[in-house]
């Protein structure tokens, strides 16, 4: 059985940059998000999992609960890496807040309290919303995805690409700018123009 907690073995897996380097950790998360890279995730896991376990063991004083916290935290990192926003903080801070939420819910469940808050209601770390958009860009509630897809067909190609990346893939405007290699201002104006056009199309249909 491999004990990844021993520094010697841990080092063996590492390339020159380690996940304690914030840029490297962010790059690994991006690889997990975009390509489901197993190698990138393994590297993150070998760094973060033993430290999470040490933290959780101290918090709970119970090894099984600690292991559950590690598993749940790292599962979220694997499944939800696309929700990490590098402009909002480091990868390790993001992973810490995921672990904090899981710890909070573990403690709450142990107390069997009906009304108690859930971690998501307090800290929406993993909420699947796109709050990087300004309110002006918010689409009306009742607009259906399918309807939208139909209307998108009639948008100019450049605007359509931006809309798809933001609303379908859930990227932030900054990420779209980076991905397309265009200025953030251009992404914003394309978004605004596209949504304006969409609103017109939708209204003319009523």
């Amino acid at each position, binding site marked *: 059985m491999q004990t990844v*907690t021993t520094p010697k073995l841990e080092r063996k897996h590492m390339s020159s940059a380690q996940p304690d380097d914030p840029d490297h950790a962010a790059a690994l998360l991006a690889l997990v998000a975009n390509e489901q890279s197993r190698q990138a995730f393994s590297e993150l896991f070998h*760094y973060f999992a033993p430290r999470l376990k040490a933290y959780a063991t101290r918090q709970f004083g119970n090894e099984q609960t600690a292991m559950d916290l590690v598993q749940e935290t790292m599962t979220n990192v694997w499944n939800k890496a696309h929700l990490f926003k590098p402009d909002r903080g480091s990868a390790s801070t993001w992973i810490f807040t995921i672990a904090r939420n899981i710890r909070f819910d573990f403690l709450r469940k142990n107390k069997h309290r009906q009304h108690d808050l859930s971690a998501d209601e307090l800290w929406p770390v993993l909420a699947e919303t796109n709050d990087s958009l300004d309110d002006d860009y918010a689409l009306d509630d009742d*607009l259906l995805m399918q309807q939208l897809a139909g209307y998108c067909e009639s948008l100019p190609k450049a605007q359509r690409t931006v809309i798809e990346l933001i609303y379908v893939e859930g990227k932030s405007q900054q990420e779209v700018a980076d991905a397309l290699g265009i200025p953030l201002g251009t992404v914003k104006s394309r978004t605004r123009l596209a949504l304006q056009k969409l609103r017109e199309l939708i209204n003319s249909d009523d």
Partner: protein
Amino acid sequence: MIKFHPSEQHLFHYVTGDLTPAMLMMVGTHVDMCPHCQNEIQHIEESLAQKVFGQAQVPAELTEQVSFFDGESMLASIMSQTPKRITPVMRQDVPNELVLEGKRFQLPGTLARNQHRVGEWQKILGQMWRAPVHVGGEDVLTFIYMDKDTRVPEHTHKGREATLVVNGVFNDERSEYRDGDFIFVDDSVIHTPETRHEDCLTLSALDAPMHFTSGLSRLLNPFSSLFFK
């Protein structure tokens, strides 16, 4: 401009989740409204993350507790899942508006996400209304709405009271409080909150019922637990 903030300790324990549910709601709502404290929160999160993950090696005293770590099988089981990618992201507007006496109030994120916990509004005194916010725990979390020119009878607290201005202005003997201001008083303080030309929506967390001291006290004290509990 927000003048009154939660203490450093409140912010720290908000980040770790180690406040009562009522205080988590109070501090969280203040943070929603306060860029200064958002910044503080970020620093606290970073330093805690650094503490948990920052060591180049897991310290020996911790690895001793971590006797057995079956990392490889856990890793394999996690990666056997297919990540749920490309979730259609249509903004689901959280109902973030509170309508009271014909007035509309925008609720900060923490309150908006917990709006389903707000109980029924009741008129308590003259131009004051209250609604409980059911968050569990020992403390009592309450919305209090005061119309303009309303005065709360002078009172002290057996325990501690935190008040957050969600919208509007109120005054007491010491200062004026506006949107986002967070006030924390203990049992040594006697105060008389009042509104003047504007109405005020506040959120209040009490860890013990209020104790009224003014001439109205005899009238009010038997009811204070009804009003605020």
